[in-house]
């Protein structure tokens, strides 16, 4: 369950250097009802999900990766 994150700028780093940014979500949704779903509801999958991470104690860039929420296996 070790969690290391492959940062494209800094290499493989301990997850404690990062800030979790949540599930990757759609950028926008013009329909107000759909936008409500986009803003408030999460998939919360047990399995691979696309996520955002911010390398707070590193390059201070955002990255998107796929993490299996069950095993912590990370793929870019």
């Amino acid at each position, binding site marked *: 369950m070790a969690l290391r994150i492959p940062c494209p700028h800094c290499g493989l780093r301990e997850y404690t250097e990062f800030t979790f940014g949540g599930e990757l979500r759609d950028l926008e949704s013009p329909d107000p009802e759909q936008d409500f779903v986009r803003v*408030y509801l999460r998939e919360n999958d047990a399995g691979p999900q696309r996520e955002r991470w911010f390398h707070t104690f590193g390059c201070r860039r955002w990255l998107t990766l796929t993490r299996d929420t069950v095993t912590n296996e990370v793929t870019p």
Partner: protein
Amino acid sequence: MSPTFEFEGRQIPIEPGDTIASALHRAGVRTFNRSIKHHRRRGLYCVTGDCPNCSLNVDGEPGVRSCVTPAVEGVRVKRETGFPSAERDLLSATDRAHPLMPVGFYSKMFIKPSFAWPVAEKVISRATGVGRLPEHRVPRRKPARHLHCDLLVVGGGVAGLSAAIAAAQGGERVILCDEGAPGEKLPPGPTLERVRALADELRAMPGAQVFERHTAVGIYEGPLVPVVGEEALLRIHPERVIVATGAVEAHSVFRGNDVPGVFLGRGAARLAGRHRVLPGMRAVVAASTPEGLEHLETLRSAGVEIAVVAIPDDMADRVPSGVPVVRGGRVAAVEGGKTVRAATVTSPTGTERFECDTVVLSLELTPRDALLRMGYGLPVSGAGDSVWPGCTLDEAAESGRLAAAGTPVEPRAAEGIAVARHGYVCLCEDVSIGDLEQAWDEGWRSSEILKRYTTATMGPCQGAMCSRILASFVTAKAGPGPAGTRTTARPPARTHRLEDLAAGIHEVIDKRTALHDRHIEMGARMDWSGSWKRPFHYGDAAEEYRAVRERVSVMDVGTLGKFLVAGRDATTLLDRVFPCRVEGLEPGRSRYLVALDEAGYVMDDGMICALEGSRYYLTSTSGGADRMEMWLRNWTDRWDLHVHVVNQTTMLGAINVAGPRARDLLSALSDDAIDRETLPHMTHAEITVAGVPCRAIRVGFVGELSYELHHPRSRSVELWDALLTTGVAFDIRPHGLDALEILRMEKGHFYLGQDTLPDDHPAKLGLGWAVAMDKPTFVGKVALERMADIPIERRFIGLMFEGAAPTRGVPLYDGDHIVGRVTSCGWSGALSRAIGLGWMRAPDGVFATDLRAGETRATVTTPPFYDPEGARLRA
């Protein structure tokens, strides 16, 4: 005269090498404790730090394992269970009243009538428990250190050392920790020599670190293994962990198995061999391991009379001649109260009773595997006795090498333990076989469920002594299967002080502006403001307030978030992120900035200053700086824009020069044009003040003529000194956060998070003017559109109080109904009355105007209170 320590008013002599327990035992103390529920006498048992029996209060600290704590001259030791004392415990009546206190007692009793529970709870909590927290004790502040390695080995025996050496030879960075020191528990002999040689070899290896007297707390996801040491808490982040914590002699269950005088073999041998104190005068020994025969020898040579040895038939010939033996015998019951009086030994040939004062049990080994039982799913493997209990030294070394090589060391299933009909299974939690039987009959039929119902295996040892017995009990009833698996262990695997686990929490690093030392020199009271240390006042906040309103003042606002946003798409980014209009903002102009999240709620606020060449300078609140940077970078990334976001928060200092004489002061220090026409409110310019290049921003949180001077941090002190020196002519003085609090309150400016709620959208805060709804898009726009039709039933309000200000945070009443809350309040010098900010609700859309804040009458107003036209601000 030998040194002594105090034990309940007696002086106990200390011999060299004594632990507290060995010295007490020598002095005749047999009852060390009373058991947690039934107040049965408990005496020394394992003498290896595994069982709960020897816990004592040492110098006010409860729960000290006296058997592994060196006796130090002058300490004060006492027992703390039992009423009035452990020696004469009236509550031991609960033992005879066992049927009245059944298992699941808490779940069953006092459910009805419910009013009885609060009383009963007090009585029960007095009667149970294993110690009392000291009332006055300043916790030691220990630091926490993070260490990284490839392999962490817990346990410095043959297996652990062999594993560490093998891994270090393979080039891995290895850390080995041991709760004691390698070999220190071993008697002189070949095993000790082997351990010492291995330990020396490991210490000499590059890339290997050995931590003695460092106890692993548990294994967490990561893996992360916190390790408690005397000086620091180590947070070790290994790639993988090998647990080689050895084994403990099996606890066994029979009637009277907890009477003081019943010892595990290693415990009795340790007392007799190492501490030269006889566990008793006459012992019944039950041995079924080679180690048991060594213990027998140790006891005999120390002078203990051996009443009988109960031993398997095939080992009987190895008992020295002259020692009485019962072939195939086992201890079936022990009689005794204060101490053991006799033991009954049964064998295929019959049952015999032996008078004795000591019973020594050396029957088999049970893995000391709490760490393994909490590391499921993590890269953790076992080695040595903790997976192969009773293995030889060569096997231990082999298992260590296998584990180091990454080959799984399959546990050798310890055989089930024959479960008797009487006796205590779990010493920590005082659970007997009878309790398990009863719980089984009530329908709780797996080890994990029985654990929860009876609390067996839940105590400080986390089942090190008893989890095999519990599993065997279930397997004997239900047959082999998942019901009878061993219970999961939880951290901590050993007993720790909370102060050790809390190590490092005080290590908070404060952020300081470049002027920090200046503030202290000027007598400022510095305190936390978010993650910064900031001046609250310089001795007289009222005078600081007057300086701002009547003359001129300076404030260190270097904590503000400060950002340079540049690049081809900078305007696009800001226009799409923020609700204000950025396109068309001319260089030199500024605009109030409110940042919304995607739900349309106010996240932060600040200023946006347009620079030449489509570059922008942004400020945010002090607490919102990090979030603002993440926010800007997130959208830059997701929209794939060409923008540079440079966080200049700590590169730049900022000093706010405010007050009616602010321009006069700056004019004395600058040749640049800063007059009202050239540099009006909501503009900014690059100017030089006292030789320091500054970006002067005309903005006013305090509601007076003011210039925020943003400048290189390295020039802060120089600028500050020049302002204060030249300012003497204007009777200048700096102001801190206390004065600022009332200054901004008079202007009706909210503090985000203090005066606002997480779901305040701009209109609720009266900030509708800061949102350009006609822009094609911005973050939060769709949400604002969706909420546009929802009537606003909660508003940000101003309050005027009659008399003194109430306590901040008090509710606002309309008649008997709470309709809101006071979020800021204080005495306004300008209005000569107490004022405040807050929010109130009006579900029916009618906002009342006369309210009550606690006992204080409050009138609702619309802020600001001071200079509502902003004439002074625009001066």
